[in-house]
C-alpha cells in the first residue's frame, strides 16, 4: 500500500514538474521584461582640466592609435552606451552595445551571440566583443575605477582590444577556477591593423585561475597572449607599420570584503604587466620604411578602498618602458628622448546607489617629458536593466 502511495506521488511529481518546466521557463535569474530584450543605458560626463594641451598628447616612444588620448578640456559627455541583451532561444544569448561618442560618431561596441547550451564548461562567442585577454580589457569603461584606463593599455592596446571573430572558453571541472580561452579575430584594431591574413590577422590565448582564500579574500590571476599582424597600420598623424606585434599580459586581482560583505568596507588590488614584441617595418610620417624590432612594456598597480558605505578612494601608479628603437628612429614617434613615461593618479568617488556614481580624480601625468596636471570630475549613471558585473 505504501509503495502504491509513493509511486503515485512520484508519477504526480513528474507530471507536474514536466508541466511546470514550461511555466517556470524564466527560472532563477529571469530577465526583467518577460520577452523584450533587457535595455540599459549608460550616461556619463566629465569636466576635465589639463595643464598641457591634450591636443598635443603623446606618450614618449609609443605610436598611439586614434582615440588613445586623455580626452578634451572642459565639459564633455563621455561615451553614452546603449545596450540590449536577451536570450535568443534556449541555446543562444545575444548582446548589442551601441556607443555614441561626444563628437557625434557612433560605433558598435559589442555585437555578439553566445551559446549557453554546449555544456562541459564550454562557451562559444561569435561577433564583436572585447577580447578576454588581461583583466582590464574585458571591463567596460563605466566599470573602471578611474576615469581613464591604464597607460600600458592606452599605449600597447589602443585603450582596449576589441575585434570581430570567434571566442571559445573552457572551464575546467575543478573546485579551483581554471578557465582557458582562445580567440581568432579579424585583426582590424590596434596593435593589429589592416585585417591581415585575409581578415584573420589576430589570435589570442589566455588562462585565468582564481579562488577564495577564505570568506573575506578572493583572487584571480591570468596569463594572456595576443598575436597581431599588421598591414600598413596607421597610428598618430600617419605613421605606418607592417609586421607582427605580439603582446604578453600577466594580470592579478585581489578583492577583500569582511565576511564577503562589501557593504561597509572593501578593498580591491589589481596589477598588470604588458609586453609588446614588435617585428616589422615602421614608416614614420615623411620618412622611409626601416626595420623595426623592439619590445616596449608597461605595468600598473592600483588599490581601491571603500572606507565607508558609498565612498571609495583609489591610488594608481603607471609606468612604461619604451625600449630603444635604434638610431634610425631618432626624432620620430618611436624616439622616447630617454624619458620613462609614468603617471600617478588619485581618485575619490561617491555612489548614491549602485546605479549612480560621481568621481573626482587627479593625475600627475608624465607620459611626455613635461608634467601634465590633470583634474577630472565625472558622473556615471546607468538606467534600465540591472546589468550584472564580472569579477
Amino acid at each position: 500500500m505504501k509503495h502504491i502511495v509513493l509511486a503515485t506521488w512520484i508519477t504526480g511529481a513528474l507530471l507536474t514538474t514536466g508541466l511546470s518546466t514550461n511555466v517556470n521557463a524564466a527560472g532563477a535569474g529571469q530577465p526583467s521584461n518577460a520577452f523584450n530584450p533587457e535595455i540599459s543605458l549608460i550616461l556619463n560626463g566629465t569636466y576635465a582640466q589639463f595643464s598641457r594641451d591634450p591636443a598635443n598628447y603623446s606618450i614618449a616612444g609609443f605610436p598611439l592609435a586614434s582615440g588613445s588620448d586623455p580626452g578634451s578640456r572642459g565639459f564633455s559627455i563621455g561615451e553614452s552606451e546603449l545596450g540590449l541583451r536577451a536570450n535568443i532561444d534556449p541555446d543562444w544569448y545575444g548582446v548589442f552595445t551601441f556607443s555614441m561618442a561626444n563628437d557625434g560618431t557612433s560605433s558598435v561596441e559589442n555585437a555578439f551571440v553566445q551559446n549557453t547550451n554546449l555544456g562541459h564548461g564550454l562557451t562559444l562567442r561569435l561577433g564583436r566583443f572585447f577580447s578576454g585577454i588581461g583583466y582590464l580589457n574585458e571591463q567596460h569603461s563605466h566599470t573602471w575605477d578611474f576615469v581613464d584606463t591604464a597607460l600600458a593599455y592606452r599605449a600597447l592596446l589602443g585603450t582596449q582590444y576589441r575585434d570581430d571573430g570567434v571566442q571559445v572558453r573552457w572551464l575546467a571541472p575543478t573546485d579551483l577556477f581554471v578557465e582557458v580561452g582562445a580567440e581568432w579575430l579579424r585583426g582590424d584594431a590596434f596593435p593589429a591593423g589592416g585585417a591581415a591574413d585575409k581578415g584573420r590577422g589576430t589570435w589570442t590565448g589566455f588562462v585565468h585561475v582564481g579562488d577564495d582564500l577564505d570568506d573575506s579574500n578572493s583572487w584571480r590571476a591570468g596569463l594572456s597572449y595576443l598575436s597581431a599582424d599588421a598591414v600598413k597600420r596607421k597610428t598618430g598623424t600617419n605613421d605606418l607599420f607592417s609586421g607582427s606585434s605580439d603582446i604578453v599580459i600577466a594580470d592579478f586581482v585581489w578583492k577583500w570584503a569582511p565576511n564577503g560583505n562589501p557593504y561597509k568596507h572593501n578593498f580591491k588590488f589589481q596589477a598588470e604587466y604588458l609586453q609588446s614584441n614588435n617585428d616589422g617595418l615602421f614608416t614614420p610620417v615623411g620618412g622611409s620604411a626601416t626595420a623595426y624590432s623592439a619590445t616596449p612594456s608597461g605595468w600598473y598597480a592600483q588599490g581601491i578602498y571603500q572606507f565607508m558605505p558609498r565612498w571609495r578612494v583609489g591610488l594608481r601608479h603607471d609606468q612604461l618602458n619604451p625600449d630603444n628603437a635604434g638610431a634610425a628612429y631618432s626624432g620620430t614617434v618611436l624616439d622616447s628622448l630617454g624619458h620613462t613615461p609614468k603617471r600617478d593618479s588619485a581618485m575619490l568617488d561617491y555612489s548614491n546607489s549602485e546605479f549612480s556614481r560621481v568621481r573626482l580624480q587627479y593625475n600627475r601625468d608624465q607620459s611626455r617629458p613635461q608634467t601634465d596636471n590633470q583634474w577630472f570630475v565625472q558622473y556615471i549613471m546607468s538606467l534600465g536593466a540591472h546589468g550584472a558585473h564580472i569579477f
Partner: protein
Amino acid sequence: MKKLKNIFNLLCILIPLSLVIQPASAAIRVFACEPEWGALAKQLGGNDVSVYTATNAFQDPHHIQARPSLIAKLRRADLLICTGSQLEIGWLPVLLRQSGNDHVQPGQPGNFAATDYVTMLEKGASIDRSQGDVHPGGNPHIQTDPRNIGKVATALAKRLAQIDLPNATDYAKRYQAFHAKWQTAIQHWQKQAAPLRGVKIVVHHKAWIYLTHWLGMQEVAALEPKPGVPPSAGHLAEVLRQLRNQPAKMVIRAAYQEARPDEWLSEHAHIPAVVLPFTVGGTDGAKDLFGLYDVTITNLLKGAK
C-alpha cells in the same frame, strides 16, 4: 611561440578527455544561492546530494561578487536553487553565462527558483528606480515565513526526484517526513508567537513583509529611506519623530546588516534593537531551518516584552 603551440596541443587533448571522463553516479551536486535553500536541499536530499551554499548569513544576497570560485562551483552543479524574482540579478547571470553548464540554465530542470512556488507580496504594478532597489516580481525575501518554506519544499522534492530518478523514492520519503515535522513546527511557532499579533515594529530593510504578514505584526517604518539606500541621519530623525506619535516595540535587522542605525534608534526611541538570523547560520541557534524560526520567534518575543 613553440611553448604556446605545446599548450594548445595539450588543451586539444585535455578538453575532449574531460568530456569523456564523468563521475559514474555520484551524489547530485546542488548549488544553493542562499543558506535557507542549502539547508532545505540537505533536508530533502540527505545522502543523495552534496550541497554547496554560495552565500552566508553575513552577506547581502543582493550584493555578491561573481567570484571565480562561484563560477567554478556552478560549472559542476546538477541543480541550482535560488530565490529568484531578481534577488540575485546582480551576480547570478554572470555565473550562469560563464559556467559553461547547460544543466542549470533558465528553463532547464536544473534551474529552480523558489519564488516561482509561493504567492509574492508587494508585487508592484509600476516600478521605477526612484523607489530604490525594488523588484518587479515582488518582495523576494520569502524565507521569513515558514509556510513558504513548506511550499518550496513540495516543489523542490519533486524537482530532485525528476533530476535524480533512480533515487526518487528516497526524496519522496524524506519529503513526507520533513513535511509532517514542518507542519507541526509551524503550529508550534504560531502558538508561541500569539502575543506578537498586532505588535508594531520598525525594520531596517524592507525584508520582513512575509514575517509580519504571517504573524500579524505591523511594520510602521523602515530605516532605509528607499529599499537598498543606506539610512541617512535625516531619515533616522524622521523615523524617530514618527515613533513619538506611533510608538513601536522594537527595531529589527538581519544579521548581515549594519548595526549602527538600529542602535541609534534604539537609544533615542528607547526600544530594543533586535537581530534576527534572517537565514540559516545568522545567529548561534539558527543552525538549521527549525533553529531559524525558533530563534526568530524567541528574539521577537524578547523584544516585545
